[in-house]
Structure formats: structure tokens, C-alpha cells
């Protein structure tokens, strides 16, 4: 059974938590074959209660030292627009749906999410379009994200400094 992971980063994004745990959303997730939803809720005032039924499991936590394991175990990542999470998710080759916090519209972090969307590496939506996006988006059309090339930086530095 597939698993979806939702992460809001170091602050809180209660609208996203509410949108993703709304009954209609859970139903759509189930119909898409997801049997497990894991929420990282950050500083949210009220966190939803975890539950486990035969067909569906909801796990909730606030913070963890590293999200690497949760990202690794996920078949779909739904995330805030934080650059660190976006890059880490794409590097692990996981399908990513970024949910833009409209209250932070001028945040420079959006620059990166928008560009990665233009380049076909992720999809993005807002809380109000999350349900529609989950129904209509075909994650298999996303392009793989090639790793960065620090060796090009090293070669450049060696050259300008005069190391051979």
C-alpha cells in the first residue's frame, strides 16, 4: 500500500494540515491507492489525532532531527515551498507536490519552487486547490532531477587559483 508524506517545515502551516486531513482529501488519497498518511505538523497549535484502521493509517509528529527516512518511505511528498525540503525530496527521486502558503506570497523561497515547476520537476498548488490537484495531476510526467555538480566548482577554483 502506498504512503504519502506531508511536511510543513520548521514553522507551521495549519491550512495545509487541515486541507490534507479533510474527509474528502483522505477519500481521494484512498482512491489513489494510499493506505498511509504521515504528517509533520511543526508548530501547529492543534495537531490532528493519529488513527489506524484496517484500510488507512494516519501518523502525526511535530519535528524530527532528519526527515530523510520519512521522505525515503514516501511514494508521494506534499510539502511547503521550503527550498531545503524541495531539494531533498527531488534528490531522493520522490514525486513532489508543493503547496504554496498564500500568506507568504512574497517569500523568496517561492522563486525556487516556481523554477523547479517550470523545469518539470514538481507540481504546485494552494490549499484551496489541493484536492483538485491530487485528483488531476499525473505525477509520472515529472522529470528526474539531476544531481548538482560540485566538481565543476572545484575545477573552476583549481583553475583560477592556479592548481593543476
Amino acid at each position, binding site marked *: 500500500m502506498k504512503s504519502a508524506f506531508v511536511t510543513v517545515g520548521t514553522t507551521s502551516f495549519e491550512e495545509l494540515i487541515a486541507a490534507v486531513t479533510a474527509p474528502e482529501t483522505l477519500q481521494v488519497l484512498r482512491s489513489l491507492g494510499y493506505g498511509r498518511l504521515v504528517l509533520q505538523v511543526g508548530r501547529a497549535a492543534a495537531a490532528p489525532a493519529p488513527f489506524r484502521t484496517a484500510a488507512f493509517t494516519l501518523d502525526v509528529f511535530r519535528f524530527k532531527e532528519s526527515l530523510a527516512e520519512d521522505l525515503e518511505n514516501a511514494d508521494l511528498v506534499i510539502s511547503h515551498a521550503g*527550498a531545503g525540503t524541495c531539494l531533498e525530496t527531488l534528490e531522493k527521486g520522490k514525486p513532489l507536490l508543493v503547496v504554496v502558503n498564500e500568506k507568504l506570497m512574497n517569500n*523568496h523561497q517561492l*522563486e525556487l519552487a516556481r523554477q523547479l515547476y517550470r523545469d518539470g520537476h514538481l507540481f504546485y498548488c494552494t490549499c484551496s486547490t489541493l484536492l483538485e490537484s491530487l485528483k488531476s495531476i499525473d505525477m509520472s510526467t515529472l522529470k528526474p532531477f*539531476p544531481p*548538482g555538480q*560540485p566538481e565543476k566548482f*572545484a575545477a573552476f577554483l*583549481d583553475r583560477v*587559483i592556479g*592548481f593543476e
Partner: protein
Amino acid sequence: MDALPAVLGAAALLLLLLLTARLLLARRNSSPRTAPLSLLVVAGSGGHTTEILRLLSSLSQSYSPRHYIFADSDKMSEDKIRTFEQKRAETFSNSQFTLNRIPRCREVCQSWSSSVLTTLYSILYSFPLTFRLKPDLILCNGPGTCVPICISALLLEILALKKVIIVYVESICRVETLSLSGKILYYFSDYFIVQWPALKEKYPKSIYLGRIV
């Protein structure tokens, strides 16, 4: 706060002075440096440390020792650096590094005027540190801390104490606009690297090598 205009004036004057000095100083001669080359690395929270460690990961043994500078409140960066250096020591037996803490330059919600004051304070604090370490090269990617460090490195150069190469790598997060540190250090760095083509177009002096983190 009556002293504020005077402080702002002094800060502007200092920047102007540095900029003039920068323009007047002869363009670096390209005489090759000899290894090893000591490196001053400015780390910082919010992904800066992760990015800069990735850049360091590909550098050869010739870049040693590595002197790390980070804000005294930034425990997370310290942990990441220690882990990185531990791993590196497994590959390179004579790997050397130091950890150096300085007061944080600009807290996230601080207003601009008092951030000028703390920046001046940070310059005063940074100069003895930069003077003591006398690095051959400074590598930074945008945390507020890197501005005073680079300015004190320029002071070293103006005082003819040491010629420091400043390499600035703008964060991968910056696609269309530079960070505040980037906007300032665009004028003071020897090599200003951006990671998206849109920035290269806007800032012609910058260098684009593709995505390097």
C-alpha cells in the same frame, strides 16, 4: 535615537571607502598560488551550511586547513560541520579544520536600522578573527555573517597585510533575485558565482557554472 543618522552615515562612508579601495586595487595578478591554501568558510543556518559543505566536498586536499565561522547560536551548523569533517578525515588522514563562533549579524525579525549597528559591531568583532586566521581564500554563500567577514578581509588587503581571494556562491534558492548579502558582495568579491541563468543575465560580472550544489 539621535546617534542613528551619524552611524548610518559612517556605515555608508565605510562602504564607499571600501568600494573605492576595491576599484583602485590592481586586478589580482594570476600568479599561481602554491598548495596548501587556507580556507575561511562562512557557514549559516537556513540551508547555507548544507550548501557550502556540498561545495567543499569536491575540493581536493590542497584546500587546508578549513577555518569555519558560524553564529554562536547556530548549533545545527556546528553539528553538520563536525559530521562532514569526521567523514573527510576518514579519506584524508592529515585533514585540518578549526571552528570559530561570532555573534549573529542580523536576527530574522530585526529592523534595518539596528541591523546596521549590529553589522558594524560584527565588523569590529570579525576583524581580529580574520586578522588572526589570515586565510588565503574566503568562501561564503549568503548568511548575514559573511558581509562583515568579507569587509574585514578587504581591510586586511587595504592595510597590505594579506591578499585574500573572496569567492561568493549565491544560494541555489536564488533564481531571479540576489540575497541582501549577495547584493553587497557582488561589488566586493573576486569571483561571484550564481546557479541560475536568469541571475547571470541580470548580473554580468557573475559566473554561471550550472547547478553546483
